[in-house]
Every structure is written in structure tokens, then in C-alpha cells.
């Protein structure tokens, strides 16, 4: 049979060469605009003789980043610890609740509404209360990060785990696959793209959550640094801390993109 000859037409993955120029533009133009804004800021501070306590020039912030790096790195280490621990806690909780919701009708009816209501609590307002209950250590911060991470993870995991093609599940059922096998082979992988989006939302939230959670009281951290240095009119250190927080958030945003490529290699192909 010559069927393979008849259709040896494989839709090859077309390397998008024509997209390259526009890709350069999409990276280059924002960079140019960003650089222009920084230069304008620098120029304005110099021309108008603004004191650093009101608004430090970018050059000043840069030198502060270098000079005060011990202080800043120390703060970053603590905040990063809160982010990572809080994320892991919230992630574990979110996946647990999602599995409960997907596999148990009772759980779905009783616990899921509470999950939704939990999101109406203003977490920032909760922070001072948690400091009273849990103290000035990292514990209340971890809890606040976890609370914020928990929700997007739960919602995306529930959506993902129920997104599997029913015909694919039927195919597996016809092969006498167990529920666990169906989960491992179909439902789980089908949930991954949803979950990756959830992780991305959760991680960017985690950065802000950790910083804000330090404001009402902490022993260390970038958020604490912002509050205390602000009181000392060291605006340059505050801005330097903001720069570091922004960089952390950028990394947290990029991480799921990299993770996605590693965990879902099939996505890169066949999108042509």
C-alpha cells in the first residue's frame, strides 16, 4: 500500500523567519522608551535641583544600590523567603482544595463557596491582625502570601482538571483504565496549561503580597526597609528597594514561561 507516499505531506514546523524583524521591534522599542524616561527623570532632577529626599535621580538610586547592597540583599533574602514559602504553602493548599472540589461533590458544595468568600477578605487589612496573632517573624507574611496564592491556583486547577475532553476520558474508560490512570494520563496533563497561568498570576501576586505584609511590622525584609527608610527620608533607599522588588516580580513572571516550556514540550510544536 502506498498510502504513506500519497500523503507524505507533513505539515512541518515553519520557522517564523518573517516574524524576526517585528520581534526585534517589540523588544527594542519599549527599551528605547524606557531609557528615554530614565534620562528625562535624571535630567528633570538635575535641572530643577530636586533634593534626593523628595525624588532621587536614577544615578543616585544606582549608587545607593551599590553602596547599600548589604542592607538591600539582607532585606531581599527575607522577602524572597516569604515569597517562596508562602507560594509553596498556597500552592499545596490550592491543589488540595482543587482535587477535593473535582472529585467530591460534597466538598464542592460545602467548601468551594467558602473558598470564594475567602477572597473577599481584604488581605492588606488582615496583615496587622496577623502580626498580633503570629508575631513579627516571617510567619504572618507567609500566611498572607499563601492566602493570595491559594485562590488563583485553586480556580485554575479546578478549571484545568475539568477541561479534559470527555471523549478522551471515554476512550480510557473503554480500556478499563482506573480513575487514577485517567487522572494521570488525561485529566492531569489537560490541566497543565491552566495551572501554568494560575502559577504566573500567583507568583506575581506573591511578590506584592510579601512586601505589603511587612509594612505593619517585621524584623527584616524589603517592605520593612521601605517603611523605615521612608521615615528617615532616605527616599533613595526606598526607590532602590522598589527597583529590587520590580526585578523580583519580573523574574517571578518569567519563571512560569520557562517552566511551561520544560513541562509542556508539546506546546512549542504544532502551533504553526
Amino acid at each position: 500500500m502506498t498510502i504513506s507516499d500519497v500523503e507524505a505531506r507533513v505539515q512541518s514546523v515553519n520557522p517564523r523567519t518573517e516574524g524576526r524583524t517585528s520581534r526585534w521591534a517589540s523588544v527594542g522599542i519599549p527599551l528605547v522608551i524606557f531609557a528615554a524616561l530614565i534620562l528625562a527623570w535624571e535630567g528633570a532632577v538635575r535641572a530643577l535641583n530636586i533634593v534626593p529626599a523628595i525624588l532621587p535621580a536614577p544615578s543616585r538610586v544606582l549608587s545607593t544600590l551599590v553602596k547599600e547592597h548589604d542592607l538591600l540583599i539582607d532585606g531581599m533574602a527575607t522577602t524572597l523567603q516569604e515569597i517562596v514559602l508562602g507560594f509553596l504553602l498556597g500552592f499545596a493548599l490550592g491543589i488540595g482544595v482543587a482535587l477535593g472540589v473535582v472529585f467530591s461533590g460534597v466538598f464542592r458544595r460545602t467548601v468551594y463557596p467558602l473558598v470564594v468568600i475567602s477572597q473577599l477578605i481584604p488581605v492588606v487589612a488582615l496583615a496587622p491582625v496577623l502580626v498580633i496573632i503570629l508575631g513579627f517573624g516571617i510567619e504572618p507574611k507567609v500566611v498572607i502570601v499563601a492566602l493570595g496564592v491559594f485562590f488563583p491556583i485553586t480556580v485554575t486547577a479546578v478549571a484545568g482538571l475539568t477541561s479534559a475532553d470527555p471523549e478522551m476520558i471515554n476512550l480510557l474508560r473503554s480500556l478499563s483504565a482506573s480513575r487514577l490512570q485517567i487522572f494521570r494520563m488525561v485529566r492531569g496533563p489537560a490541566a497543565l496549561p491552566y495551572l501554568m497561568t494560575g502559577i504566573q498570576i500567583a507568583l506575581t501576586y506573591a511578590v506584592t503580597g510579601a512586601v505589603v505584609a511587612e509594612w505593619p511590622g517585621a524584623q527584616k525584609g524589603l517592605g520593612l526597609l521601605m517603611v523605615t527608610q521612608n521615615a528617615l527620608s532616605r527616599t533613595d533607599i526606598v526607590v532602590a528597594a522598589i527597583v529590587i522588588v520590580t526585578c523580583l516580580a519580573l523574574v517571578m513572571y518569567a519563571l512560569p514561561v520557562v517552566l511551561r516550556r520544560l513541562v509542556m514540550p508539546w506546546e512549542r510544536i504544532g502551533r504553526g
Partner: protein
Amino acid sequence: MTGTSAAATRESAASVRVEAVSKVFPGDVRALDDINLEADAGQFVAVVGPSGCGKSTLFNIVAGLIRPDTGRVLLGGRDITGTTGHCGYMLQRDLLLPWRTVIDNVVIGLDVLGVPRSESYARARELLQRFGLQRFERSYPAVLSGGMRQRCAVIRTILYDAPLFLLDEPFTALDAQTRLLMQEWLLEVWSTLGKTVFYITHDVDEAIFLSDRVFAMSARPGHLLTMVEVELERPRSHEVRFDPHFVGLKAQLVALIRGEAERALAAELT
């Protein structure tokens, strides 16, 4: 090109009997009404009928995915009503998992059975080679053409090596030319496997071309209109479509089913 014969047999072909099967869905939707079908071991049997005649419900009952309200399904004389794992199952959609490579897709039935990968891969490679897909072993399904994907689905069905193959309009989504080639190819494959096949289609021509026996079903609620034996020699090539016996059967079945389709349409319009 070397290697032993196709898959080592888990179970050989078995006869299938569908006895007095009826099914009513909630809302008083009567899908099937007293269906009786029979296929001898190793026979190729088609069920043909207008769309919406409950063919797919019948299919799911034989596969064990749905329980009939009454009646039973026998495989080799054993009552298998409502149980799964006895048939290879293939639909119009290939249902390849996008996150599994071609080879991991075709061995999924063996994964479910717990066959070690070393063994399942060896069997899969032999079939991939035979069906001209060995170059795509490590590719994801997204890069394959429709015909290639359907061949993967056939390989997946063969590797599971169940005594009964259930095919529900597997080639309907393909273009006309590819479909004809796939039909001939399927017959060739089937002749080397000797499995019992239940083939569900709305295409009378396809049903006669492939089968030893054709059951025609009415519009909903689906009941049996007639059964014809196809007495055409095998192996068949596409020229068999011009054989007087073929043409006669086709005229008979088309008239029956057309009448049913018209009746169903009239019922919908009133």
C-alpha cells in the same frame, strides 16, 4: 522489516451478540428499541443508519460505557453487559493525546494494562514501521496529517489487542480520497489480524465495501430494519463497487435508509 508477526495475541477474536437491547434516556428520549445483532468470530460487521438513529449509543453499550435498560451483550458467549476492557475503540476523532508522542499514544492501552514499556515499545515500533510512521515515533500528534493521525489511532486499537474492534465512523472526517485509501488499508490490516469488527457508519457504500454483514437501523428510536449478507470475495479492491451484487445491495439499503431519513426529517418538521 524483520521481526515477528504483529502483536502477540492477548485474546483471539470472539463472536458478539447484542440481545434485545433497549435504551431510554432521561426526558423519554428513546434511543434504542429492541436491537439484536450478531457477528461471528472474526467477522466484519457494519451497522448503518441515518444520523441520530442511536448508532453511537449502541456503540457505547457494546463498549460497556453505557448500561442498556434491557437486554445484554455477549462476547464469545460470556455476558459482558456494562463491563469495559474487551474492545478496541475508535471514533471519528482520533483522540490522540497532544501531550504524548506518537509512540506513547499508540501504547496507551498497554500502559493501562501495565505492560512494561520495553515490551510495548517493541510491539509499537513494528507496527509503526509497517504503517510507515516510524519516522514520527518521537513526534507529537500535532505535526501529523489527518490520515496519519487516524492510522495512529488504528495502531493504538490494534496494540490493545482486544477480541473485538469497535469503529464508529473512523474515517468520516477525512477527505474523500484519503477515506477510500484508508478503507482499503483497513481491510488489509484486518485480514492479517482476524479480529471481529463492529463498524458503525452512515455511509452505505462504505458499509458494503468493508463488511461480511450489514445491519440497517431506522431513525430514532433506533430499531433494526434489515440484515444483509455481503457475498463478495475477499480480498476486495475498489472495483468491487461495480459488481452487480454490490450495486444491488446498495440500491436496497439506500432506499431503506433514505425512507427512514425522510421519515425522521418529517417528524422533526411537524
